[in-house]
């Protein structure tokens, strides 16, 4: 057990995990997931919001099993290595709002950091602007860290607090099993499905769930985090997590080459638009929100699986943010930004700066 522990904490460990995610994300595209969207935590949380009717954008409704697998896989890993730590109480309302803003920003760009890498690995040049925005957003976050920004300490709490989010996830899995997709129907029992668009493109349930569980297991062990990767690079000149992020990009790129999925260009890329400034600005918002919340959307799911109630609140905030984005016309589409997308970016940025400037606490 301790040698497995050491492997995942090592440089080779984090690189292996990044490569694993890259290969399987590209394969998931082959197996049915949307283009350059083998795994996208933001998009998939958004699809889940659609599946349970929190928004009614007909093309993005699917209860993505990968997300459920991430949480449950991380939970299993946490238990196996005695790392399940029920904890909560570090400014939950702020974490909820950060989750909402992160999602609003990510949906202006159309992807979480993982998908930004997958888009680049698939040849989508627009992802470059998104990744630059991500770096810029996280860099702003590091300036707040240096000024003493933090959301206060968490507290250890009842085991059942840590259980609550994984139980919600199990409940969603039960719904997915009870109400499977009916061909050409957009409703099965109480769950919504997409009959066309990205929401209709998905790998088989068992495949998605299996990959999700495996990713959850290894990512929990290795603490894989794309926000942490850039933050540690900027703040500490440390390349540990960054090497994992790079491995994801390279592995996905090579897998795409092998599968003939690499199509370089800017126009007509799958689920993407070409408005450079807003691809950049959307990810500035998302990157800053991830930084202030202490993790990229994937990492928040894994921490929620480890019993972190604050990370769970962030995830719920993301799902609420997806609903807001689609209900209020903030989310982009392949045609470009939504009618209120630009306003949303400006307002979100203002709220993030308010949070960053005002939440400082002496801890040492």
């Amino acid at each position, binding site marked *: 057990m301790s040698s497995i522990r050491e492997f995942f904490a090592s440089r080779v460990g984090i690189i292996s995990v990044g490569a694993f995610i890259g290969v399987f994300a590209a394969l998931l595209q082959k197996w049915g997931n949307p283009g350059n969207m083998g795994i996208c935590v933001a998009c998939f949380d958004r699809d889940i919001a659609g599946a349970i009717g929190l928004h009614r954008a007909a093309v993005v409704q699917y209860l993505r099993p990968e997300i459920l697998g991430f949480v449950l896989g991380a939970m299993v890993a946490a238990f196996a290595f005695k790392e399940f*730590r029920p904890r909560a109480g570090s400014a939950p309302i702020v974490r909820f709002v950060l989750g909402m803003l992160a999602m609003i920003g990510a949906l202006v760009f159309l992807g979480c950091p993982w998908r930004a890498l997958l888009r680049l690995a698939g040849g989508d040049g627009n992802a470059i602007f998104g990744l630059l925005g991500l770096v810029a957003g996280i860099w702003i976050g590091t300036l707040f860290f240096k000024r003493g920004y933090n959301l206060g300490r*968490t507290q250890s709490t009842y085991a059942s607090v840590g259980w609550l989010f994984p139980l919600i996830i199990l409940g969603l899995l039960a719904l997915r099993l009870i109400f499977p997709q009916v061909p050409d129907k957009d409703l099965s029992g109480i769950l919504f499905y997409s009959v066309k668009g990205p929401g209709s493109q998905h790998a088989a349930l068992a495949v998605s769930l299996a990959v999700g569980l495996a990713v959850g297991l290894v990512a929990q062990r290795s603490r894989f985090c794309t926000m942490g990767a850039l933050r540690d690079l900027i703040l500490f000149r440390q390349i540990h997590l960054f090497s994992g992020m790079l491995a994801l990009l390279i592995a996905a790129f090579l897998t795409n080459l092998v599968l003939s999925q690499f199509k370089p260009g800017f126009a007509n890329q799958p689920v993407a638009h070409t408005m450079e400034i807003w691809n950049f600005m959307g990810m500035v918002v998302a990157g800053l929100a991830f930084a202030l919340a202490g993790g990229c959307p994937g990492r928040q799911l894994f921490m929620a699986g480890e019993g972190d109630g*604050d990370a769970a609140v962030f995830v719920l905030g993301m799902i609420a943010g997806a609903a807001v984005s689609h209900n209020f016309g903030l989310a982009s589409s392949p045609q470009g930004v939504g009618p209120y997308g630009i306003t949303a970016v400006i307002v979100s940025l203002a709220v993030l700066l308010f949070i960053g400037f005002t939440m400082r606490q002496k801890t040492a």
Partner: protein
Amino acid sequence: MSDLIDARGLSCPQPVLITLEKLKSLDQGELVVLVDTDTSKENVIRAASSLGWQVKDVNAAGVEYKLTLEKA
């Protein structure tokens, strides 16, 4: 008596940030850091090693770790 940092309950990157700040101000000697997640434990150890500090002792007490760092 060695210096003490209580990083329990703090989320990333705070434990590393305050540990590094302290290590730089100490330059050498001994520092005890309290953390309560494995992620923080690994991150603090990694950061300390990068500055040439050794991990003298890792003491697990319940759900917490007491890390003793030293540099001669």
